[in-house]
C-alpha cells in the first residue's frame, strides 16, 4: 500500500473570482520535499516527493496524483500533460492515480474537493504546471550538486538531466533531490513560446486501458472475501420500511444476509445475481409518506401557474411594466422542461470495508472529501479514519457529485448494519429511479421589440426547484435567488443593452431530490433565450444570424463563436431539399459556443440531425482535441435531452426504469457529420465539458421552425407531428 503523503503547505497565490457561493479562495502548494520509502526502509528506495501531485521513484516511475476524477472529460491526460510540460519527463514512466481525499486536492477556487463546473483545466493550469516545474528545478539542482556544475549548465530531456555529455536519470536523483531544502514558491514557468504540448495536445493517456477491458471502474472492484449488496428502495422518495419478510430471500442459494437500513432493505450475497434474486422475492410493507401524491402533470401545471406570476427579482432594469407601450410587436411564450436523469453508463456502486476504527471506500465519485465526511459521520469516526479510493467513473455528469453523498451513505449503512465487506450495486432501475434529477422548470417570457427589431421590454419568470439549497454551495443563494436556476437568463448578453427588463424566479419546495446535471441551469435557460431570440428575429422579419449579430455587437466572444460557426457551416449557402438549418450561441462555464445544425423532419415527424458545425471560444485550448471531443460529447448529450429525456412521476413513483423508456440517443441518431472549430482567442480560459450542451437543443428547435413553421417549446421534442 502507498504511504500517505503529508507535507507542509504554503499559500502562495490568491486567484480568481468565484463561480458560485461565498467560498474560500486559496491556491496551495505544498513546498517541503521529503523522503518517502516504498515498502522498505532501505534508503536506496528513497522516493522523491516534491509535492502532493507527483513523486519520482528510483526506478524512474513518476507517480502522478490527479486531484480530479476522470469521468470521460480527459483530465487524466490534461493534468498529467501540465506536469509533463514542465518536467520534461519520459511519458512512458507515468503512473497516474486518483488522489485520495485531502486538503492538497481541494479545488483552487471552489474551496471543496470537487470535479465539476467544467473548471479543471483553468483551475489547475498553474498548480499542476508548478508541481512539474518545482520537481524539475530540484532534480536539476541535485544533478548540478552531484556533478559540481551550475544549475544553469544543466538541461532536461525525456526524464534525464543532461550536463555536457553526462546524463543522469531522474530516478537516480530521487534520493539527492529529497535531501534538498524547500524551494520558495512559486517557481518560474515556461513561457508559451516554449510549450511543447500545451495548445497542441497529446493522445488520451487512459485510452489503452479503456480498449482492452483493463481499466478499473468502481463496479470492477474485487476482493476474495467481497460480497455484493443489492438494496430494495422505497417506491416513493422518503418512504420507510414498515415491516418486511425475508424468508423467501434467505432460501436463495448464495444469499448471506438481509438487513434493514434507513433507505430500504439490503440483500447481501456471494454475487450480484443471488443478491438481485433475493431482492426480487423480498416482501416489504412501506410507509410511503405524503410524497405518494406527487404527480408530474399536476406539478407541471403548478409550475406554469407560478411562472405566469412575478417571481423574486433575479435581474432587472428600468420599468418593464410600462416599457411594453414602446413595443410595436410583442411575443409571449411558455417553455416547459421535465426532470432529467443523468443515467451514466455505470450504475452507481460503492465498496465498503469496515474495521473497528477505520473505513475503506472504493467508488467513482466527483467529491471524495464529501463522501469521507459522510461516512465518518455515520460511523462516528474521524474523517481521517475513512479513506476513499476513487476509481474511473463510468460517467458522472454531476450525478457522482452529490453533496448529500446518497450512494456512499447507503453503502456505509449496509456495511455497518451487516458487518460485511460489501460492494453495493445499484441496478439500472435503481439508478434511473434514484432521484437527484435535473429539476423540472417552466419559463414564461414576454418580449417587445421596436420597429427595428430592438428589444424594448423583456419580462421573464421562471419556476423550478433549487439545486444549491442544502449543499455546501448554499452560500451562493442571495436574496432567494439560486444562481444555478437563472444562470444564462439573468446574465444574458441579450438583456445587457435592454433598458427595461425583469427576470423573476419562483423556487417551489417539492420533495423530489434534484442535482446539477451537465450544464446545470443552462440546460433550460439557453433553450429559452436562444429560442426566444429566434422568435423575435422572425417577428422582426430578420435572418436569425443577422439578428443575433445586431444584438450581440458588444459581445465579441459570443460574436466570434457565432461568426465562425456560421462561416464554417455556410449559413447562407443553399441546402439540399428537405434540409433546414438552425443556429444558437450561448456562454456557459466561461466558454462561448455556437452550433449550426442541419436537420430534416422525417415522414413520421422524427427530427433527424444530419450535421452540426460548432465553434467554441474557450480561451487557450490546452488540449485542443480534448476540447473537440467534449463539444462532440455535449452535442450528443444535448440531443438525448432534447429529443428523448423525460422523467415523470405518478402517485409519487418514477415511471421510467431503464433505457427502453428513458431513451439515450444511439449511433443511428447521431449526426453523421460534426465539425468543431476552436476560435483563436486570447480570452480568459473557460471549460469545455458542459458548454457544448446548452445551445444544441435550441438550435434544433430553431431548425425545426425553419422546416415546419412550428415552434417547439415543450421538452422533450419527441416527434414534431
Amino acid at each position, binding site marked *: 500500500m502507498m504511504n500517505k503523503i503529508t507535507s507542509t503547505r504554503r499559500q502562495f497565490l490568491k486567484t480568481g473570482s468565484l463561480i458560485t457561493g461565498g467560498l474560500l479562495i486559496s491556491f496551495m502548494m505544498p513546498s517541503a520535499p521529503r523522503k518517502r520509502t516504498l515498502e522498505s526502509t532501505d534508503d536506496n528506495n528513497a522516493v522523491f516527493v516534491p509535492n502532493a501531485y507527483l513523486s519520482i521513484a528510483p526506478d524512474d516511475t513518476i507517480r502522478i496524483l490527479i486531484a480530479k476524477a476522470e469521468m470521460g472529460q480527459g483530465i487524466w491526460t490534461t493534468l498529467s500533460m501540465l506536469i509533463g510540460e514542465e518536467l520534461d519527463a519520459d511519458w512512458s514512466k507515468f503512473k497516474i492515480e486518483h488522489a485520495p481525499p485531502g486538503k492538497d486536492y481541494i479545488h483552487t477556487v471552489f474551496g471543496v474537493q470537487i470535479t465539476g463546473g467544467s473548471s479543471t483545466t483553468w483551475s489547475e493550469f498553474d498548480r499542476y504546471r508548478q508541481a512539474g516545474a518545482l520537481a524539475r528545478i530540484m532534480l536539476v539542482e541535485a544533478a548540478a550538486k552531484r556533478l559540481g556544475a551550475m544549475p544553469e549548465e544543466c538541461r532536461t530531456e525525456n526524464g534525464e538531466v543532461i550536463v555536457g555529455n553526462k546524463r543522469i536519470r531522474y530516478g537516480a536523483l530521487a534520493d539527492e533531490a529529497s535531501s534538498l531544502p524547500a524551494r520558495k514558491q512559486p517557481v518560474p514557468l515556461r513561457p508559451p513560446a516554449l510549450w511543447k504540448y500545451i495548445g497542441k495536445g497529446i493522445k488520451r493517456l487512459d485510452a489503452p486501458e479503456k*480498449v482492452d477491458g483493463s481499466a478499473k471502474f468502481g463496479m470492477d472492484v474485487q476482493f476474495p472475501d467481497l460480497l455484493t449488496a443489492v438494496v430494495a428502495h422505497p417506491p416513493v422518495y422518503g418512504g420507510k420500511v414498515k415491516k418486511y419478510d425475508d424468508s423467501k430471500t434467505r432460501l436463495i442459494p448464495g444469499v448471506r444476509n438481509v438487513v434493514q437500513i434507513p433507505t430500504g432493505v439490503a440483500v447481501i450475497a456471494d454475487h450480484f445475481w443471488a443478491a438481485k434474486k433475493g431482492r426480487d422475492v423480498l416482501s416489504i410493507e412501506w410507509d410511503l409518506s405524503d410524497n405518494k401524491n406527487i404527480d408530474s402533470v399536476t406539478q407541471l401545471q403548478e409550475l406554469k401557474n407560478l411562472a405566469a406570476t412575478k417571481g423574486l427579482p433575479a435581474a432587472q432594469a428600468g420599468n418593464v411594466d410600462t416599457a411594453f407601450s414602446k413595443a410595436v410587436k410583442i411575443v409571449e411564450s411558455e417553455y416547459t422542461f421535465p426532470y432529467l436523469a443523468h443515467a451514466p453508463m455505470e450504475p452507481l456502486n460503492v465498496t465498503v470495508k469496515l474495521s473497528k476504527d477505520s473505513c475503506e471506500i472504493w467508488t467513482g465519485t466527483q467529491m471524495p472529501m464529501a463522501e469521507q465526511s459522510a461516512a465518518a459521520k455515520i460511523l462516528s469516526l474521524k474523517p481521517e479514519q475513512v479513506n476513499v479510493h476513487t476509481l474511473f467513473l463510468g*460517467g458522472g455528469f454531476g450525478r457522482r457529485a452529490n453533496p448529500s453523498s446518497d450512494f456512499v451513505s447507503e453503502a456505509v449503512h449496509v456495511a455497518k448494519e451487516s458487518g460485511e465487506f460489501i460492494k453495493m450495486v445499484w441496478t439500472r432501475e435503481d439508478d434511473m429511479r434514484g432521484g437527484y434529477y435535473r429539476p423540472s422548470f417552466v419559463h414564461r417570457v414576454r418580449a417587445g421589440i421596436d420597429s427595428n427589431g430592438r428589444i424594448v421590454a423583456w419580462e421573464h419568470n421562471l419556476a423550478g426547484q433549487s439545486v444549491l439549497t442544502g449543499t455546501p454551495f448554499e452560500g451562493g443563494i442571495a436574496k432567494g435567488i439560486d444562481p444555478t436556476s437563472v444562470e444564462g437568463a439573468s446574465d444574458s448578453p441579450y438583456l445587457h443593452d435592454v433598458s427595461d427588463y425583469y427576470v423573476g424566479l419562483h423556487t417551489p419546495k417539492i420533495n423530489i431530490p434534484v442535482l446539477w446535471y451537465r450544464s446545470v441551469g443552462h440546460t433550460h435557460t439557453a433553450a429559452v433565450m436562444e429560442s426566444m431570440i429566434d422568435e423575435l428575429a422572425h417577428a422582426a422579419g430578420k435572418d436569425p444570424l443577422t439578428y443575433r449579430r445586431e444584438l450581440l455587437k458588444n459581445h465579441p466572444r459570443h460574436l466570434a463563436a457565432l461568426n465562425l460557426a456560421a462561416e464554417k457551416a455556410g449559413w447562407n449557402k443553399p441546402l439540399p431539399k428537405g434540409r433546414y438549418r438552425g443556429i444558437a450561441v450561448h456562454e456557459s462555464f466561461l466558454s462561448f459556443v455556437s452550433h449550426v445544425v442541419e436537420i430534416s423532419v422525417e415522414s413520421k415527424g422524427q427530427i433527424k440531425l444530419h450535421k452540426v458545425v460548432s465553434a467554441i471560444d474557450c480561451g487557450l485550448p490546452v488540449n485542443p482535441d480534448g476540447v473537440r471531443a467534449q463539444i462532440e460529447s455535449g452535442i450528443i448529450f444535448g440531443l438525448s435531452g432534447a429529443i428523448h429525456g423525460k422523467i415523470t412521476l405518478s402517485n409519487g413513483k418514477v415511471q421510467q426504469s431503464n433505457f427502453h423508456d428513458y431513451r439515450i440517443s444511439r449511433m443511428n441518431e447521431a449526426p453523421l457529420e460534426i465539425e468543431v472549430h476552436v476560435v483563436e482567442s486570447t480570452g480568459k480560459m473557460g471549460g469545455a465539458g458542459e458548454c457544448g450542451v446548452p445551445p444544441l437543443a435550441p438550435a434544433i428547435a430553431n431548425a425545426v421552425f425553419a422546416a415546419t413553421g412550428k415552434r417547439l417549446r415543450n421538452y422533450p421534442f419527441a416527434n414534431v407531428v
Partner: protein
Amino acid sequence: MIKLTINQKLYSVDAPADMPLLWVLRDLLGLTGTKFGCGMAQCGACTIHLNGEAVRSCVTLVGRAEGQHVVTIEGLSDNRSHPLQKAWIEEDVPQCGYCQSGQLMSAAVLLAENANPTDDDIDKAMSGNICRCGTYPRIRRAIHLAAKLQSGGKG
C-alpha cells in the same frame, strides 16, 4: 459444474442455471472488462462473442454458453493488437470508457462479417450499444479506420 471455454481457456464454474453469463464472467471468473449497464439487453455494455456472434451477456443464461466458444474484451487480442483497438486509440475514442468494451465487441463482429462497412452498416450494427458520453462520431471514424488497417491500408 458448468464447463465454459472463454478466450480459449477452459473454466469450470459452479453457477446457478439461471445466472446470466455476464455475472459468471464478472463475479465468478473475475473478467470485469465486460460491463453491466442495464440488465435487459438495452445498452450493449455487456456484449461478448458467442461462437463469433455478438450477444448481450446480461440476458444470456450461462447454460447457453456451455461447450461454446466465448470471447470477451480480454480475449479480443493480445496487447491491443486488434485493428479496432488500434483505431480506437488513434481516434481517441474513449471518454469515460465504460461502454467501450461492448462497443468494440459489437464492432469486431461487424468487421469480421463486413470488411468495408458503410455508414449505414455501422448504424445497423452499432445502434444496440449506448454511449452516454456520445463518442459515436469517433466510433464511426475508428471503424472506418480499422477497416483500412485490416485490409493493410488499401481499404
